[in-house]
């Protein structure tokens, strides 16, 4: 998370090409949206019992239980001709890139052009139970959720592509819970899907990342160039990690105060 924000902050001061980043999670982790009230949306006690850390994202949206998913981050300038000036246009373009990558794995994902009515019994806090425009669905079930933050003409878009989905694990850590647990699980299964459900062969994280990279290259007509963090980004990352993302106050309460 600190790396993504470091890239986002550095872009605000330097004219540089957009950055695409993929990563996974060493341990199952819950990420919260910028504005989410942790006490209302995540069962903190359950997370503690299961050793599931909670980290707050700089991006909006809902909570995600990361476990074996592929997380992506795109940072770009909103005046870059690769991305439309309107905000939803950026979601649309990035969704097309991801759909193009998933198609290479034989998965036909479609953009959510008009929001589905949310399932009443689904967990309102969970990102994957709440589709929004231009997120990706396979047979009307969400496979990729995305969220943005914008500042100084730069956007950071986060998204998560599920390799597998376990509704029980999600329900165990997300709030609020309805009284009917089985019905809630069923609704989650009906709303959410994953890569493994739509591929006959064994597809691992590396294959998904390579397919997604090809999806970005073909859709945008670009050639991705592998890079590393610049010394400036490394410096910002280190400060953000120490003072923000490892700070209980940010993760539990959030807030716009200066963290670095």
């Amino acid at each position, binding site marked *: 998370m600190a790396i993504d924000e470091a890239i986002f902050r550095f872009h605000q001061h330097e004219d540089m090409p957009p950055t695409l980043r993929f990563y996974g999670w060493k341990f199952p982790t819950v990420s919260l*949206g*910028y*504005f989410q009230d942790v006490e209302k949306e995540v069962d903190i006690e359950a997370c503690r019992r299961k050793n599931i850390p909670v980290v707050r994202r*700089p*991006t*909006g*949206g809902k909570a995600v239980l990361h476990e074996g998913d592929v997380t992506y981050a795109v940072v770009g300038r*909103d*005046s*870059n*001709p690769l*991305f*439309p*000036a*309107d*905000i*939803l*246009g950026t*979601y649309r373009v990035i969704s097309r890139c991801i759909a193009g990558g998933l198609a290479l794995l034989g998965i036909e994902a479609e953009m959510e052009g008009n929001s589905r009515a949310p399932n009443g019994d689904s967990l309102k806090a969970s990102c994957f139970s709440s589709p*929004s*425009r231009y997120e990706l669905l396979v047979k009307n079930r969400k496979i990729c959720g995305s*969220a*943005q*933050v*914008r*500042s*100084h*003409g730069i*956007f950071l878009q986060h998204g998560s592509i599920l390799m597998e989905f376990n509704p029980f694990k999600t329900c165990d850590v997300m709030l609020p819970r309805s009284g009917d647990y089985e019905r809630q699980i069923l609704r989650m299964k009906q709303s959410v899907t994953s890569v493994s459900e739509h591929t006959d062969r064994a597809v691992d994280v590396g294959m998904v990342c390579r397919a997604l990279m090809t999806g970005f290259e073909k859709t945008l007509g670009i050639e991705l160039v592998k890079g590393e963090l610049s010394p400036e980004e490394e410096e910002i990352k280190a400060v953000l990690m120490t003072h923000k993302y490892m700070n209980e106050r940010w993760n539990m309460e*959030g*807030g*716009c105060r*200066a963290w670095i």
Partner: protein
Amino acid sequence: MKVFPDDLLYNREHTWVRVEGDLATIGITDYAQEKLGEVLSLELPETDDSVERDEPFGAIESAKGVFELISPVSGEVISVNDDITDDIGIINSDPHDTGWMIVVEMNDPEELDDLLDSGEYHDFVLREAGDG
């Protein structure tokens, strides 16, 4: 096209300032609220907090994402609009007036020299909307 009041100054991050002496009342522009869509969440500083020019003083969320609110001036917050925290829809319905967000006692009124007047902001918005 939107009309941007002549008595306000604007930054390129779509916040406006109304100046009375050393006091700057700050809000977001009608263009910004339209671009965001329905505002769902808002975070503002508290009275006595400091704000810095070109740094975030708060954040706002719509269904499209989170947007940092960038301060056009530096100074100390002397008032926060409680009405919009109670009824967040005011930001969408009346962004240039009752939708004001904070009042700042400015440290350096010369910072206002870098802001845009309504005509310049209008042209800036036209250029931005035309990008991409």
